[in-house]
């Protein structure tokens, strides 16, 4: 087998780089993470002409090789490291025909690294519409490259691009301009100090330290002294470099590109007269949000019912197939309903991701950032916090990763800290079951379902809590940071179905797999802990038999008594009992205590845990989890456990507490310390306890 060609797709954000990636790889792609960091890594395989294969890596979007974020840094780290197994044989630089001038900046930088580069001019179908014409031959000559005019929308130019990739050895590796002339003396010194090193690479390593401070410079050692420059001098030099590059690009495009402004149509600007208007902009945004929640709750309902029924019958089938006993209970009453409890939310999550993907793809999300910035800043947040806070309604993990483009560290930190208060989908199973227990199902005004209204109330509560927490954090956290806010307003585009579908599929799949794994593991551990115990547990049968004889219990009564006695004295029972004094004031018994302990791994485990606990205790009860919870009583008093007060208290607790190991891990990664995730975990924990306590006292 011949060696695969390593191809890196590089480009500015909003150039349709992902569309080109999808067009090249089709379904042969996988999404993962770069080792050690949570930057998404997309790679795929593309079949080229004459049986050659290419490994395609879709690098994060960046405006230049001067990284200012973790995502952008990935690009530089790769391009500076020839030993990386993904180091590209050829770089495919994706540009957008409408923003060629800006896109070429990055292209000239990549050329300076002497990596063979192909220039893709994407969205070429919009050329006529924008009155643009290009002299491709001239541009190829000036930029010392080969150009592919591509339109992924019209499926044009992709084959030509594949041909160019296959023949990458014919590409020139010469830089297209001499950037070192901005300060010949300095660069001469640099060349003498590090002989044998590529000058532009040295320059990037030096400036990278200024901007980002993460580039590994071990491989480069100076052989002679050279005069270093101060940070501000370097920054000025970078500015000069940028100006120099633009000079070259302007000169090149003056000949190579003609724009007939009379022929150009600008629908985006016209749309923005309304969509970013001081009044209408907000009205449209509010309507879109309402539509989104409508979609999540109403349109996904039929799908959810189908899934619910499917898992209920699966439980029955499994239960019928396996021999009766504890293992049967574990699988049919614990694992299957536990997994079902997550899968049932797939339609809602998919719907939410669908909306977010469409808003991002069309370019509307940037307008939301623009509209909301001033308001959000009052709470110590940024306009860019809106995206994480909305995505947080699906899952806090991608939401926290989405805070990366917030330039101001304080604003970003506050966004990270309050995002887990958004009602993530893992809370839905908990909310749904608790609301169904404490809110009677009626129609308000004969129209609105009371339980749906209660759920909506929980969403409003999430927003109010997030804003409240942000205001407080903004007062407490003292941090002086540079406050940059730059957001590109891309032209509106019709979303590409393929891109949207991939995003929804990928994110939903990741959610189900991650949550599924945790639930499976927790169910098994829980089952083990519930069926094993200390001395009292092993002697349970003797103790209960004595008691049964003394009280003259029937066999059925004896079995029930035995089961609850065993649960109480099992390891998990002991753990629940141990924390009972702490949670008693909130109205919880030790069984709920167990559910709270286990749901520190993930909230959605709450339902599965109660399912497992009640099935271990009472295997004969064939009812649903809900009916078992409804009939649960406190040991001794016989009072109902799930009263309105307990329900409210639990709802508040789950609305606030950070019960998600994955979120803690991601905050640790994104803030690069244990300080913030711990503050967040403890802060939200204390807040949850207090709110639950107050809630319980009011409704008691």
């Amino acid at each position: 087998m011949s060696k695969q060609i390593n191809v890196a797709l590089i480009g500015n954000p909003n150039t349709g780089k992902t569309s080109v990636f999808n067009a090249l790889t089709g379904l042969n792609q996988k999404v993962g993470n770069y080792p050690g960091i949570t930057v998404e890594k997309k790679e795929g395989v593309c079949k080229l002409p004459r049986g050659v294969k290419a490994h395609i890596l879709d690098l994060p979007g960046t405006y230049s090789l001067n990284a200012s974020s973790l995502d952008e840094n990935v690009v530089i780290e790769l391009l500076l490291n020839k030993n990386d197994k993904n180091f590209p044989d050829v770089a495919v630089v994706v540009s957008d025909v409408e923003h060629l001038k800006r896109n070429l900046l990055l292209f000239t930088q990549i050329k300076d690294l002497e990596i063979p580069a192909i220039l893709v001019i994407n969205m070429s179908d919009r050329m006529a519409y924008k009155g643009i014409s290009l002299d491709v031959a001239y541009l190829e000559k000036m930029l010392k490259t080969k150009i592919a005019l591509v339109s992924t929308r019209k499926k044009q130019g992709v084959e030509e691009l594949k041909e160019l990739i296959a023949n990458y050895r014919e590409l020139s590796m010469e830089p297209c301009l001499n950037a070192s002339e901005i300060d010949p003396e300095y660069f001469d010194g640099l060349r003498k100090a590090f002989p044998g090193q590529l000058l532009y690479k040295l320059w990037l390593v030096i400036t990278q330290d200024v901007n980002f401070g993460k580039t590994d410079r071990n491989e480069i050692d100076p052989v002679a002294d050279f005069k270093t420059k101060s940070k501000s001098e370097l920054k000025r030099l970078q500015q000069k470099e940028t100006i120099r590059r633009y000079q070259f690009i302007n000169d090149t495009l003056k000949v190579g590109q003609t724009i007939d402004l009379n022929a150009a149509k600008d629908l985006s600007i016209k749309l923005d007269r309304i969509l970013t208007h001081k009044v209408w902009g907000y009205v449209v945004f509010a309507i879109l949000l309402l539509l989104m929640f409508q979609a999540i709750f109403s349109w996904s309902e039929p799908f959810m019912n189908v899934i619910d029924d499917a898992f209920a019958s699966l439980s029955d089938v499994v239960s019928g197939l396996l021999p009766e006993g504890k293992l049967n209970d574990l699988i049919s009453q614990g694992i299957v309903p536990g997994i079902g409890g997550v899968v049932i939310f797939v339609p809602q999550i998919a719907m939410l991701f669908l909306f977010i993907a469409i808003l991002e793809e069309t370019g509307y999300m940037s307008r939301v950032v623009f509209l909301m910035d001033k308001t959000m800043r009052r709470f110590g947040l940024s306009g860019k916090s809106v995206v994480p806070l909305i995505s947080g309604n699906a899952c806090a993990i991608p939401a926290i990763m989405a805070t990366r483009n917030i330039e101001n560290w304080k604003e970003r930190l506050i966004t990270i800290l309050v995002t887990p208060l958004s009602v993530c989908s893992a809370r839905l199973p908990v909310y749904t079951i608790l609301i169904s227990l404490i809110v009677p199902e009626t129609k308000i005004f004969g129209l609105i379902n009371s339980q749906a209204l209660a759920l909506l109330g929980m969403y409003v509560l999430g927003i109010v809590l997030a804003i409240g927490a942000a205001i407080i954090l903004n007062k407490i956290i003292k941090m002086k940071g540079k406050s940059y806010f730059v957001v590109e307003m891309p032209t509106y585009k019709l979303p590409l179905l393929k891109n949207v579908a991939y995003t929804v599929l990928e994110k939903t799949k990741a959610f189900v797999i991650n949550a599924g794994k945790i639930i499976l593991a927790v169910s098994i551990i829980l089952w083990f802990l519930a069926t094993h115990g200390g001395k009292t547990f092993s002697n349970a049968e003797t103790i209960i038999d004595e008691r049964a004889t003394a009280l003259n219990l029937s066999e059925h009564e004896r079995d029930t008594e035995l089961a609850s006695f065993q649960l109480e004295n099992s390891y998990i029972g002991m753990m629940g009992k141990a924390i009972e004094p702490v949670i008693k004031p909130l109205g919880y018994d030790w069984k709920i205590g167990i559910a709270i302990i286990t749901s520190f791994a993930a909230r959605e485990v709450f339902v599965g845990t109660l399912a497992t606990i009640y099935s271990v205790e009472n295997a004969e009860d064939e009812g649903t989890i809900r009916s078992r919870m409804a009939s649960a009583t406190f040991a001794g008093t016989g009072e109902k456990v799930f009263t309105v007060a307990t329900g409210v208290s639990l709802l508040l607790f789950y609305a606030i507490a950070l019960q998600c190991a994955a979120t803690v891990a991601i905050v640790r990664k994104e803030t690069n310390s244990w300080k913030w995730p711990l503050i967040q975990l403890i802060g939200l924990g204390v807040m949850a306890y207090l709110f639950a306590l107050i809630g319980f006292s009011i409704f008691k």
Partner: protein
Amino acid sequence: MQTTLAQIKRGERAVITDVSSAHIPLKLLEMGCLPGNFVELVQAAPFSDPMYLNINGTYLAIRKETAIHIIIDIVP
């Protein structure tokens, strides 16, 4: 007329004459906010902050606090 970008009004066209590199992120420069390039206001949010601009054909939004560090010359 020499002024800062924060003062620009809709319908006015201006040329950037100077940017204070100490206060302007490199990213903004890379997006085309450089001396010699034209700029116009597309839309202002309430209280004119942030500002939605067209700089050299790139559409972007920046806050007023950044715009005051960009000097422009309004073309009559």
